[in-house]
């Protein structure tokens, strides 16, 4: 049974290799090959899941040792896969959602001549992501970690002829690289601390290490998580990442890759448990990002960017929960899974809308679409209810638990974090309602006007087959696109309840992450009530602003906060001024220094020698007699030398 684990990764990897090296002759069937292989991986995952369920909780950790990777002295890195409840959960999420999105992409990318390569990249991503969650040591995890980074680079920049896309891809990779540095330093610290970086021994002996070292490791891991999961201060790339095709945004930048940070933190639970300071920082980062993302989400008119902001904030929830320690780990993962469902569903819905609207992304040019694309409307609506935490839907359970846990943290921290979480819930309700209303309700704002906003992706494939210009004809998307949306909608409706009933999920995950009931100052009921109040507030506010009065087709100037939020709270501008400009100046001056100073010294000395020799050359005046003089002088010196020798 264990030996199947490798198969999980092998299938999509094979797909990637075949599709990327296959050449044109595979264009016809490429997308089916990709989908098939990812589904195969999903099936293998199910089989393994069944196998795990067959065993009792203690023996649900399987490892498969493939080969010894880097054996150098004490530095032993093996290619070993580890399948336990945590990674199992991720495997199912990744392969499941992944397969659905493969299916969706078949329709979505139908008219792109490079569709084969797109599927190749998707498979590559799946393989890397699976490696990330299945790795048995941090170094192997690092490989997956950067692998998904590469895949996301390739996919964000899939339409490379668009400078914006290429830039966004580069930005994403670079920001992630900063995070990766954190991970690599963490690994080095582990090696110097424990002499190994395999999960087993490290997490087992984490307690023996000094708290200082644990804190350092924890902070470095957090840095990595920030990079990958777009947490403040490394969140700036996620918004631009929306340049990629929508399925990519759904799979990578909503459901799976961006949650890798949460996985990392939960996986390293033992380390964080030993480093309360690090945990505090984690919660702070989570809380800040939670609000940051939510506020940004409120102001964006680009539907995908609005969703991106929401993703950021939801991941903020997860990180916050993960930072709470044993009381939060499970709920972090639970929210992660449910979020994977409904956010993927929302993105696919958005993609479907754009598909029907000539790739228009500006919500101010939508409106009243519910009549034209009913399935999209329903699925999107269910996702919406799930994310705002409508009672009974998945978001309700997972988010509620996190808020409870936040309060349960106890003390002032508990109150602050809980308050933040509640506020976040309110804002979430607000911006999601906004999106919903602007897109599907109100009167159509796209009638009799070419809705091709100039900066809209010129080569979104759908653009070719229906007149890119002129009035759009909203229509429901093909079946390959609707089916995944339906499935995901079901998941986002039922997931939470399914997990929560009888704490199934808790018992499933507890052996890995550990769990402890915090003693909350407020009863669970109170918290739920508070959440409901926030929810109603948010929805009501949004209704008041976007539901009652018509939405202006062009964005009003808005308050200071709105304008700031539109510009990602000026975080990008800061980066641009400080890092980009400063960096350019630094490199320019360094080039100058290298040319004038370092090289100049050498050339200068060379010139000096040249002049000296030129001066010496004068002595060679060609007169035999002056040469004779020097000879004679030399003779005299020789005599003197001999005499001196004899004297001493």
């Amino acid at each position, binding site marked *: 049974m264990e030996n199947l684990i490798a198969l999980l990764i092998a299938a999509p990897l094979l797909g990637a290799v075949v599709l990327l090296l296959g050449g044109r002759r595979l264009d016809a069937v490429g997308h089916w090959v990709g989908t098939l292989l990812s589904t195969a991986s999903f099936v293998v995952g199910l089989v393994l899941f069944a196998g795990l369920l067959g065993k009792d909780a203690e023996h649900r950790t399987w490892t498969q040792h493939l080969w010894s990777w880097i054996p150098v002295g004490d530095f032993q890195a093996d290619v070993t896969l580890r399948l336990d409840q945590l990674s199992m959960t991720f495997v199912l999420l990744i392969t499941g959602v992944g397969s659905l999105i493969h299916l969706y992409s078949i329709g979505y990318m139908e008219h792109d001549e490079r569709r084969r390569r797109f599927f190749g990249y998707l498979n590559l991503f799946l393989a890397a992501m699976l490696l990330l969650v299945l790795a048995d040591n941090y170094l192997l995890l690092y490989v997956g970690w950067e692998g998904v980074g590469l895949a996301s680079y390739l996919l964000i920049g899939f339409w490379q002829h668009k400078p914006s896309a290429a830039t966004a891809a580069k930005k994403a990779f670079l920001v992630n690289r900063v995070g990766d540095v954190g991970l690599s330093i963490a690994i080095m610290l582990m090696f110097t601390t424990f002499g190994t970086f395999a999960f087993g021994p490290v997490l087992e002996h984490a307690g023996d290490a000094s708290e200082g070292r644990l804190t350092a490791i924890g902070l470095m891991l957090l840095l990595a998580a920030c990079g990958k999961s777009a947490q403040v201060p490394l969140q700036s790339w996620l918004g631009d990442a929306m340049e990629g095709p929508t399925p990519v945004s759904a799979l990578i930048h909503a459901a799976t890759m961006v949650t890798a940070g949460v996985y990392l933190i939960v996986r390293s639970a033992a380390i964080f448990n030993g480093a309360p300071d690090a945990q505090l920082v984690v919660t702070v980062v989570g809380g800040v990002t939670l609000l940051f993302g939510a506020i940004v989400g409120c102001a964006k008119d680009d539907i995908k960017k609005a969703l991106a902001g929401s993703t950021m904030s939801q991941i903020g929830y997860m990180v916050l929960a993960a930072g709470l320690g044993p009381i939060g780990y499970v709920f972090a993962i639970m929210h992660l899974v449910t979020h994977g469902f409904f956010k993927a569903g929302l993105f696919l819905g958005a993609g479907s809308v754009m598909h029907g609207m000539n790739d228009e992304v500006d919500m101010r040019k939508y409106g009243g679409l519910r009549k034209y694309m009913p399935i999209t409307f329903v699925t999107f609506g269910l996702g919406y209810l799930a994310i705002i935490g409508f009672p009974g839907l998945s978001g309700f359970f997972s988010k509620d638990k996190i808020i409870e846990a936040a309060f349960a943290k106890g003390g002032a921290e508990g109150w602050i974090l809980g308050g933040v979480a509640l506020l976040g819930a309110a804002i979430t309700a607000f911006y999601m309602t906004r999106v919903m209303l602007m897109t599907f309700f109100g009167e159509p704002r796209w009638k009799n006007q070419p809705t091709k906003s100039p900066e809209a992706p010129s080569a979104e494939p759908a653009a070719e087959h229906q007149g890119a210009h002129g009035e759009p004809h909203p229509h429901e998307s093909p079946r390959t696109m609707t089916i995944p949306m339906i499935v995901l909608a079901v998941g986002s409706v039922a997931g939470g309840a399914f997990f929560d009933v009888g704490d199934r999920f808790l018992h499933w995950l507890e052996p890995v992450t550990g769990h402890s009931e915090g003693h909350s100052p407020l009863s669970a009921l109170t918290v739920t009530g508070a959440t409901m109040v926030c929810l109603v507030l948010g929805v009501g506010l949004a209704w008041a602003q976007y539901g009652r009065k018509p939405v202006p087709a062009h964005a009003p100037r808005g308050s200071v906060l709105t304008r700031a939020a539109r510009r990602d709270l000026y975080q990008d501008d800061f980066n641009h001024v400080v890092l980009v400009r400063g960096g350019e100046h630094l490199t320019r001056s360094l080039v100058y220094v290298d040319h004038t100073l370092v090289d100049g010294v050498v050339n200068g000395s060379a010139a000096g020698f040249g002049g000296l020799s030129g001066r010496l050359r004068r002595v060679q*005046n060609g*007169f035999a*007699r*002056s040469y004779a*003089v020097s000879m*004679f*002088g030399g*003779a*005299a010196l020789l*005599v*003197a030398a*001999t*005499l001196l020798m*004899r*004297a001493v």
Partner: protein
Amino acid sequence: MSTQLAAYSTSTGEAVQFWILGSVAVIGALCTVLMRRAVHSALCLAGTMIVLAVFYLANGAYFLGVVQIVVYTGAIMMLFLFVVMLVGVTAADSLKETIRGQRWLALLCGLGFGVLLLGGIAHASLTQFNGTGQANAGGNVEGLATLIFTKYVFAFELTGALLITAAIGAMVLTHRERTERAKTQRELAAERVREGKHVPPLPAPGVYARHNAVDIAGLLPDGTPAELSVSRTLRERGQIRDVSAQALGDLKALEQRAEERLERTENTPATFKRTEDAAQ
């Protein structure tokens, strides 16, 4: 004891001889260096060499002494003199220096070197000193002969080879092969005309009725000497006797006397007088 003493000193006669001739030699050497004309240097050098020959004899090197006189002073120095004559001593070998600082450097080096050398000799511990008595027992020449033809025979042969090579080399160097045939009178004349200077033949040396030696430049109508009328070698040696001044002086005196004889007034052109005078 006595032998020791004998070892360290020589007869007073030799001492006297040394001091006299030694100073002569040094003076000769200095003159060799300082004389302006090569001929004089050569002669001084010859003198020095003869002195050295005497010293050889005094040192018991009879053969060498003779060789020195015969070969060096006799042959080599004469060779020098020949060359000096052949080349024509460019008496313009002024002692004024052309290379800046050369002379001072040279003197400095020479002084330093000399001092060092003398100092070195003084410093050297030349203790053992046994005259060439028993060495020359069988006769100096025989002794040398035995050494040359036994111990130094190879070197001797080599020097022979060296001499032959030198002789041939000298011949090769001085011999000049005529590559093109000699020009005929006609060609030379044509060339002269083409060049355009000295179309007529060069003027002849000598002054009418007074001097006819080849080293006396002919006078131009204004009384200045015509360099061209003297052969090139003499010109190069600067051995031109200039008689223009005294020639003019004689002329003036002549006219003086003529006027005194036939009381002539001043205002008569000299030329007429000259012709008239000649007519007499």
